[in-house]
């Protein structure tokens, strides 16, 4: 440990570690200096100046997010002059912001609103010219509203530093600065992967998911359709947060009950789709392994990753599994197997997916995933949207009596549950592939090597004397590092899992906003959400996808066997290179990955 130094905050001395910023030191001592553009996972921007403090001997106020502590430093965080300056800074931001809080999507969930309240801003002192821009509604998943943007730059840094997508930039300068894709292209024509992480880190409503709640309410009131819902593993692990519950509660039963109360006739579980995905994917992997197919095989569940693949890594398309995602597999089974079984005209089924994801909105309308002229999923809504619908319909979500999902597509194994956490698909696939390949039972089914929040994880297992090397990456920036290794050394791995969002689906772009005093995508919160899924897995008797009796029944009655021609028709697809082509800068690849 390096030598401790002494700093004074508001007249009291504290021993602190050197080599940290004033803000970091103050945080640990319980002084939460107000802030806006700062995010612990992103580079320091120092743009908003909200986090200013007084440092003795310095002529001006200092941005505490970017200034290191030093021995003997005397800091004040809350003087009269500071409070006034901070309030003026926030007032000037608000002056250039539409004053339409009560009709805004982020009302009650907006950092700027909270900040203004904490500054005691209760009147407008500066009224002047304000920027006015049109909304970019082009994308089916992520909409951009520059009028609400306060230019903190978190979205730009998220998109570039964490995701390595580099879709956003602060174009033009001064008063005319606007966050936009290259050439001011509409989001739909840009390299945006629809991951929605810009929404997660935006303090205001400058980025939002395309809202599908009104359309869904209309369908729920349509007497001529059969309303079918499915929900992703990570939705149950996070939706409680939207109702003020602590992070990491599994709300599966409550969610099923609430979806029924909303008007859905049947509620199925995307975890069943996950089990089905594992049946197909594990068999596809073994087939590639035995018949010298293209390896490493890379997972294809994450829709943001699929869009990224087509634009950034077209050279790796053959490596990616042909399996559709659990959502799309289940969607296909709803409109074929289930419809047939129940004697319902599939064209009369309205299929809804509640997802932790914004990119699923893009996936749902992909022509590549259609079959018999139909979409498997008609509408995909985010955790935030479904939580809002439940509130709006006056359903007492927290106290509701839990219910079970419907047969025949509602029962799932523990392997299906852990899909939501990074490494979960790999772990689930190993559980099944090992047993299919060796014919023996895998005793230790919890694969610790692929669990946790390390950016790139690797592990290996031995199947009948053959070493299988696997790797897992979450967040597209980590994926970029791993895929660079694959490009240079294609023999290094056999099987790779990639998830587009930090932490996997639990950190998806559609998850509830961080609450008061919480940080978006905070590691501790991600771990708790993941733990909810791992606990769900442990609590189940059936923990392997191939042991799911309803999956077995589905194969017997409809699909015949994994990779059959019926499976190929409904559960598999192919992707193609798409424009505009994405470019990852050299410096991102320069960072050596140490494993």
């Amino acid at each position, binding site marked *: 440990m390096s030598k401790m130094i002494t700093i004074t905050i508001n007249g009291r001395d504290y021993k602190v570690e050197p080599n940290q910023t004033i803000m970091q030191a103050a945080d640990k001592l319980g002084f939460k200096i107000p802030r806006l553009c700062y995010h612990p996972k992103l580079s320091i921007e120092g743009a908003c100046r909200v986090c200013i403090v007084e440092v003795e001997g310095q002529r001006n106020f200092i941005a505490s997010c970017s200034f290191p502590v030093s021995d003997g430093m005397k800091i004040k965080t809350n003087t009269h002059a500071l409070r006034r300056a901070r309030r003026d800074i926030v007032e000037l931001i608000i002056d250039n912001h539409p004053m339409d809080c009560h009709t805004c999507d982020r009302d009650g969930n907006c950092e700027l609103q909270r900040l203004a309240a904490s500054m005691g801003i209760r009147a407008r002192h500066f009224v002047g010219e304000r920027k006015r821009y049109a909304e970019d509604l082009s994308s089916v998943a992520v909409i951009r509203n520059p009028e609400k943007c306060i230019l903190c730059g978190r979205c730009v840094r998220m998109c*570039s530093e964490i995701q390595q997508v580099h*879709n956003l930039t602060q*174009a033009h300068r001064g008063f005319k600065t606007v966050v936009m894709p*290259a050439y001011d292209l509409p989001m739909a024509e840009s390299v945006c992967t629809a991951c929605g992480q810009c929404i997660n880190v935006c303090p205001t409503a400058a980025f939002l998911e395309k809202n599908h709640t009104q359309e869904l309410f209309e369908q729920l009131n349509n007497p001529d359709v059969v309303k079918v819902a499915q929900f992703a593993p990570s939705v149950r692990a996070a939706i409680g947060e939207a109702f003020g519950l602590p992070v990491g509660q599994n709300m599966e039963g409550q969610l099923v009950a609430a979806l029924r109360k909303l008007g859905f006739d049947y509620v199925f579980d995307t975890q069943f789709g996950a089990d089905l995905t594992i049946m197909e994917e594990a068999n596809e992997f073994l087939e590639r392994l035995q018949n010298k197919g293209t390896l490493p095989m890379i997972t294809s569940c994450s829709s943001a990753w699929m869009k990224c693949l087509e634009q950034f890594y077209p050279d790796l398309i053959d490596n990616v599994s042909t399996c559709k995602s659990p959502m799309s597999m289940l969607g296909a089974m709803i409109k074929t197997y289930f419809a047939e079984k129940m004697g319902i005209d599939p064209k009369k089924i309205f299929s809804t997916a509640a997802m932790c994801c914004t990119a699923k909105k893009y996936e749902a309308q992909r022509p590549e995933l259609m079959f018999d002229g139909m979409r498997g999923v008609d509408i995909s809504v985010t955790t935030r949207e479904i939580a809002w619908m439940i509130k709006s319909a006056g359903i007492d979500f927290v106290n509701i009596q839990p219910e079970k999902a419907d047969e025949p597509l509602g029962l799932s194994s523990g392997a299906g549950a852990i899909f939501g956490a990074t490494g979960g698909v790999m772990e689930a696939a190993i559980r099944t592939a090992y047993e299919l390949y060796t014919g023996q039972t895998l005793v230790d089914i919890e694969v610790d090597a692929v669990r946790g929040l390390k950016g790139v994880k690797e592990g290996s297992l031995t199947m009948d004397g053959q070493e299988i090397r696997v790797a897992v990456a979450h967040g597209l920036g980590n994926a970029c590092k791993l895929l660079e290794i694959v490009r240079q050394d294609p023999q290094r791995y056999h099987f790779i899992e990639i998830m587009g969002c930090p932490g996997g689906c639990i950190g998806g772009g559609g998850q509830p906003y961080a609450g008061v005093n919480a940080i978006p995508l905070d590691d501790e919160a991600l771990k708790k959400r993941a733990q909810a899924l791992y606990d769900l897995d442990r609590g189940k008797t059936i923990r392997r996808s191939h042991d799911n009796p309803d999956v077995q029944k589905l194969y017997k009655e409809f699909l015949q066997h994994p990779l059959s021609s019926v499976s190929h028709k409904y559960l598999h697809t192919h992707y193609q290179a798409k424009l*505009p*082509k994405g470019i*990852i800068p050299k410096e991102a690849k320069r960072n050596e990955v140490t494993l």
Partner: protein
Amino acid sequence: MTELAQDKMTTLREFMAEVRQKDYSESYLIAVLHKAQELFGYVPRQVMDEVAEILQIPTAHIWGVATFYHYFNLEPIGRHTISVCMGTACYVKGAKQILDVLKSELGVEVGKTTDDMLFTLQEARCLGACGIAPVMMIDDKIYGELDAKKTVDIINQYRKADSESRKV
């Protein structure tokens, strides 16, 4: 692209090939954009796409740089660029009126080019010729102590010279 533009593109590619040999070649982006503007008169989108591909810089970064600096034109510019100095001294001496005269005489707003592609009208901050304020610069020539009539006369000289050069 026309044949002429292809030649220019080849020159730009050669310039980028040199740049690529250097360490941290992406930091030469501004130099490359300067070269592009020198060759094409502006920075076309097609050129930015090519720069992105060759230097491996995301197009959003290039767009951010190209829009940040007023120097870079993102649309084709006229054969002559008029920069009206809006610095303090010129402003006090009536630069705004000079600009208004030019706007109505040319029928374009600031930053735009006349339909005949003869003039592009721009504003400039202090050109360093405060002693003869108000001033404007056409290409690299300074015109000082302007008034409305003098300004229009100068514009007409350029128009005349241009139409004569076209007859030849």
